């Protein structure tokens, strides 16, 4: 690894660790009743968020899902605003109106988490189309779970992206489950990457989603190609959902041996090991400490923040 590689890996580790720190607190505070509603965490899947968003610019776009905290943090959203949002506070990213499933900040290209499976894919295609029509070289990434691929909007999004040569990359996080369903039980026929290629995507590849270096190395050329006009591509990143579908799900349907195998492939542990072996132990420790401090502070500020006032109830319904 070159020094550049180390720097990049340290950066991606920082992102992963921040996400993990964020979501572990979310999980805990949800259990404690401090976070209302329901939340879905991406613990174990951080390499994808970090590796993909690390390759993006501020003016690039992403859309994500109900499991989107990681993608938002990696794309540059501040933990303070996000945590306050989850606490339902006025200082939250969306003023407390959105919540975990609807965090968005279009000003930095985050076009939204989404509570509707597959809804983000066409949105990303449209953003990519707009980028080109407006003469920029921005690209869009649509994050989605593997449960999404059976749905109509997935098919329509791929079809339109290819037709429009839209600079969009579909990143399918295959974390083994769609809610309580073993995703393999729903799958028939060719692998997703082959099917996707059949739509005319210029590239389609299945990768190890728990290795942030692999994710980065895969995505960077795809982003560059999309900027240069190569059109859409798809990546199926293999990973594993370490928590339940939502916090509180006891996961009775999980195969424990498989779970353990995946735990051993934890993306943060892997990056940490590589960096420690390369003599970056101190930097790694500092990343962890910084992230803990950052997120603890976010929690503290979030819990201290006021709830939105009644006057905001009817604000922002219309433009």
């Amino acid at each position, binding site marked *: 690894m070159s020094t550049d590689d180390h720097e990049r890996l340290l950066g991606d580790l920082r992102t992963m660790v921040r996400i993990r720190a964020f979501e572990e607190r979310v999980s805990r505070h949800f259990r404690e009743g401090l976070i209302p509603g329901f939340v879905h965490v991406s613990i174990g899947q951080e390499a994808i968020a970090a590796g993909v968003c690390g390759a993006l610019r501020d003016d690039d776009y992403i859309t994500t899902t109900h499991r989107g905290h990681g993608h938002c943090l990696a794309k540059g959203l501040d933990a303070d605003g996000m945590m306050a949002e989850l606490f339902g506070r006025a200082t939250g990213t969306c003023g407390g109106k959105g919540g975990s*499933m609807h965090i968005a900040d279009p000003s930095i290209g985050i076009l939204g988490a989404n509570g509707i499976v597959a809804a983000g894919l066409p949105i990303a295609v449209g953003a990519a189309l707009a980028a080109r029509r407006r003469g920029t070289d921005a690209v869009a990434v649509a994050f989605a779970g593997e449960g999404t691929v059976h749905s109509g909007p997935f098919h329509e999004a791929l079809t339109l992206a290819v037709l429009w040569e839209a600079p969009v990359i579909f990143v399918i996080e295959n974390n083994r489950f769609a809610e309580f369903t073993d995703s393999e*039980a729903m799958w028939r026929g060719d692998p997703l990457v082959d099917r996707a290629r059949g739509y005319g995507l210029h590239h389609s590849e299945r990768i190890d989603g728990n290795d942030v270096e692999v994710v980065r190395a895969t995505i960077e050329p795809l982003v560059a190609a999309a900027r240069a006009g190569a059109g859409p591509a798809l990546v199926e990143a293999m990973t594993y959902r370490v928590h339940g579908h939502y916090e509180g799900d006891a996961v009775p349907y999980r195969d424990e041996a498989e779970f353990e195998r995946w735990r051993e492939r934890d993306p943060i542990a892997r990056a940490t090991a590589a960096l420690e072996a390369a003599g970056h132990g101190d930097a790694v420790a500092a990343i962890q400490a910084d992230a803990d401090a950052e997120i603890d502070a976010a929690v503290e500020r979030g819990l201290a923040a006021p709830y939105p006032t009644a006057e905001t109830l009817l604000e922002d319904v219309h433009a």
Partner: protein
Amino acid sequence: MPDERPPRYIDGVRSAIAAEMEADPDVVLIGVDVGEGGGVFGATRGLHERFGAERVIDTPIAEAGVLGAAVGAAMAGLRPVAEIMYMDFVSVCLDPIVNQAAKLRYMTGGGARIPLVFRTQTGGGRSSGAQHSQSLEGMLAHVPGLKVFLPSDPRDVHDLLRAAIRDDGPVVFVENRRLYNRRPADGPWEPLPPGRARVVRPGDDVTVIAWGRMVEEVARACDEQLTDVGVELIDLRTLVPLDLETLERSVRRTGRALVVHEATADFGPGAEIATRLSERLLYEIEGPIRRLGAVAAPTPYSPPLEALALPGPEAIAAAVRGLLED
């Protein structure tokens, strides 16, 4: 040790499906995670084991396809109970409901039979966010050809769901997730058919018409804040068919009425009820028929905002007192 307590609302759902599956081999259950997982709320737990994967069918996330298939299966002799996990998701599968199931019998001059239940649930007030909180029964009641049932009572959910499954036409069956753990009140139970509203508590001053979770919110408002007012609380139970007779009889007596629903008030189902009652009783009422529903905004996530957005006991009590001043 068997649970000796009366069954909860959610148990009523499960036992109704089980009873109809037992009685008729053509009844099948279909939807995302309804099978092995037992449903995201556990409503269908045990049915997969009991009736097998052939009759309790887990599907991929492809609701438009699944509901379309349910329409075809219904025309070909099954009686599917198809689940739409959250009512908000009708947005991804409206066509099979509105343009197929609802219209096929009519379009075929009676040639098609569509014995099909679209089971779904709603329930705001727990920070589920704008895309998991909508009560869209008004949209569906507006579509000729659909029936719309919305049980509020743990016993009624069983009765109405059985009736829905036995109906030879499409029924949208709207449960409320915040009622799933409710157990019935003590006292005798007299089953009613769909299309008959139930007078939940009699009263002479004001008629309040509600359904779903709003029935208990109104009851709470009465118990906690309106002890001095004779509220006649009517659980509408089914929006289509609409039991105008029972409503009219009550309002003719009380002279005042309020419709309370979780759905957005604007262009919502309460407007129909208010209009029908006003048409019939204009000269008998002592003030306008009023509605109380969600405010005209997407459902906010933050608990204090959401509490303001939805009707609760305070707002209901205030609205009832408002009626008395009209």
